[in-house]
């Protein structure tokens, strides 16, 4: 029953074709390779996600601004007007932190559920599943860009300049943020397949995490001064704040965008507020470079764990 074979093959000779191996163990290198090969899929996933989200709505992408704007307005109302914290240009201070935080919350909470939400394709189509978690980093970056644009517009309107000479540190900081959120998102997306209430836990944890990050309050003014005198096991309590990797990133954004270390309060006594630490430019650079390193290491670890767990995705879903 052997059929007549074509006289010559029109395909690439077998020996020159790329080789792929499917087995229980997968090296991180091969994971990187397959992710790199499917980068176009990543792009399509990011843009299709954005398109779907706003396709049916009249105002489109404007909606992606509505939620962060309302959050900002509420914190402004509560802390500046009701509590009267006296911080001048409090909107910019808040924006700097919320820019970073919205990225964290968008990417981490969406990627936690993404493998389960996309069960249809995970079960039927072969592609590197890591791409799913990374696509949420992509969409979060798009929203980040829009919010950054609006913040910049506001700063122009109120004549508030960033520290131009330190602006170049922000991309490094953003890279660290992407790596860290990518690592967390990747890890949680895999865990959520096996334990479905991970995502509920994450939502609660994110709320706690928000208040442990100096966004609506100033680290220097609130945390550093009050906790520095308390020492536990030889560590100043305020240093514990830096276990949270988002803290240094938020503080970098505050430094560059808010710019003023000391400001005069808008309260009647016009007291001097120390909003930002007096660190040199160099220490901000070092801090962010360390974070990039930490983020990269975390991402490698997350990839490794993900590689172990993904083998059974199609059957667990």
């Amino acid at each position, binding site marked *: *029953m*052997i*059929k007549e*074979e*074509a006289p*010559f*093959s*029109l*395909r*690439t000779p*077998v*020996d020159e*074709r*790329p*080789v*792929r*191996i*499917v*087995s*229980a163990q*997968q090296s991180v290198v091969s994971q990187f390779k397959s992710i790199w*090969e*499917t980068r*176009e*899929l990543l*792009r*399509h*996933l990011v843009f*299709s996600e954005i*398109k*779907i989200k706003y*396709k*049916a709505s009249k105002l489109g992408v404007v909606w992606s601004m509505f939620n962060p704007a309302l959050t900002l307005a509420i914190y402004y109302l509560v802390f500046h007007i009701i509590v009267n914290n006296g911080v001048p240009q409090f909107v910019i201070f808040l924006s700097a932190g919320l820019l970073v935080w919205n990225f964290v919350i968008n990417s981490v909470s969406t990627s936690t559920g993404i493998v389960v939400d996309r069960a*249809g*394709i*995970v*079960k*039927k*189509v*072969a*592609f590197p599943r890591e791409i799913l978690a990374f696509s949420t980093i992509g969409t979060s970056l798009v929203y980040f860009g829009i919010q950054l644009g609006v913040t910049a517009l506001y700063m122009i309107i109120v004549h508030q300049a960033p520290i131009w000479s330190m602006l170049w540190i922000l991309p490094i900081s953003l890279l660290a943020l992407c790596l860290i959120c990518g690592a967390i998102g990747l890890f949680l997306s895999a865990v959520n397949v*096996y*334990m*479905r*209430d*991970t995502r509920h*836990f994450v939502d609660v944890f994110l709320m706690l995490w928000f208040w442990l990050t100096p966004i609506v309050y100033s680290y220097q003014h609130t945390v550093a001064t009050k906790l520095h005198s308390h020492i536990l096991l030889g560590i100043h309590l305020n240093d514990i704040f830096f276990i949270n990797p988002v803290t240094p990133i938020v503080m970098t954004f505050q430094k560059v965008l808010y710019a003023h270390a000391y400001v005069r309060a808008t309260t009647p006594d016009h007291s001097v507020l120390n909003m930002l630490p007096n660190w040199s430019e160099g220490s901000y650079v070092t801090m962010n470079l360390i974070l990039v390193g930490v983020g990269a290491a975390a991402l490698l670890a997350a990839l490794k764990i993900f590689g172990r767990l*993904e*083998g*059974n995705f*199609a*059957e667990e879903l």
Partner: protein
Amino acid sequence: MTAVIEVSDVNKRFRIHHERSKSLKERIIHPGQGSYSDVQALRDVNFSVGTQETVGIIGRNGSGKSTLLKCICGVLKPTSGQILIRGTLAGLLELGAGFQHELSGRDNVYLSGSMLGLSTKTIDRLFDSIVEFSELEKFIDTEVKFYSSGMYLRLAFSVAVNVDPDILVIDEILAVGDERFATKCIDRIGQFQKEGRTILLVSHSADMIRGLCHRAVVLDQGQVIADGPTGESIRVFRERMLADTPKPIEEAASAGSATIEAVTTPSGRFNILSGQRLQLNVDLVAHHGFDGHFMMEMFSTEGKLVTRTDPMMNSVSFTPGPHRITVDLPEVPLTDGDYDINLGLVGPDGYEVLAWREQVAKLQVTYNGRGAGWMAMPIEVSVN
């Protein structure tokens, strides 16, 4: 010949949980509890596929054929062992799996194309032929959720067949759609074969496997029980099905009811001239008394079904013991060629196989005319 797909010692175990506890609370309250059992879906599977080969995988439900296909595509990973793939592979496990209902046909072509491994540039180039093949020019900018299921499948299939992989892996998808659509699919696969692609096909339909594949692998309970020429593998598959058919008590008497021992012709030869009479003597031993229908199939050398007799006709009944069935085909209007004969007995319902033999004889037909096709149709023409 270098293998394009090499499956070596692949094992796959599934853990089937009874009383699934997926929530954190339940896991904390009952640590380490929750009963499960391991199912060995694949057991030491070894085979390889060369270039330009079209290989079919057959097996009944739960034999592990879909699991194997998923492992080859990379959707599942084997528990142990490895699969080596040379070249690009497109797995069509489900048509339209990557579609997003909220997006337009156009966006979905790009999305699912990139999921199958195409670059945006390639999709740009192929876009027109994809749309043309799907015959959906008018609706390409409509959201997919407004498509009828037929339109949806047409678009999905068009994307799938326009992917240009070295290896194509197909799971049952040809079963969908109307007849015209199915023919279009099969024609496309024939074209793929001519282009020197490797095709791996899973199907429940032994006829489809026979028509398309050079070779077939039979899986049973996760193990390869046959790997060879399609006809031979299908014989093994049918015999295994027959041997293991579960026997409900009242029907127990009918399963594997008879053994076909020999098929002969009165002349002792299996070559005839086109249009001649063919007589067959089928010797069998009935294990008990039963009623059924005699059925016969003929296949061309390409594995295409030439004819299958109506399974509801030709009823026969047997008493226990040896019998001879005399089959008479008064006129065999076939054209030149060799034809494989399969025959056997089916139950009164026309489905249940009571006795079956694959490729019991090869019929040689000599046709001296210049007509073409399988059949030399008797024809009368008159002029007034």
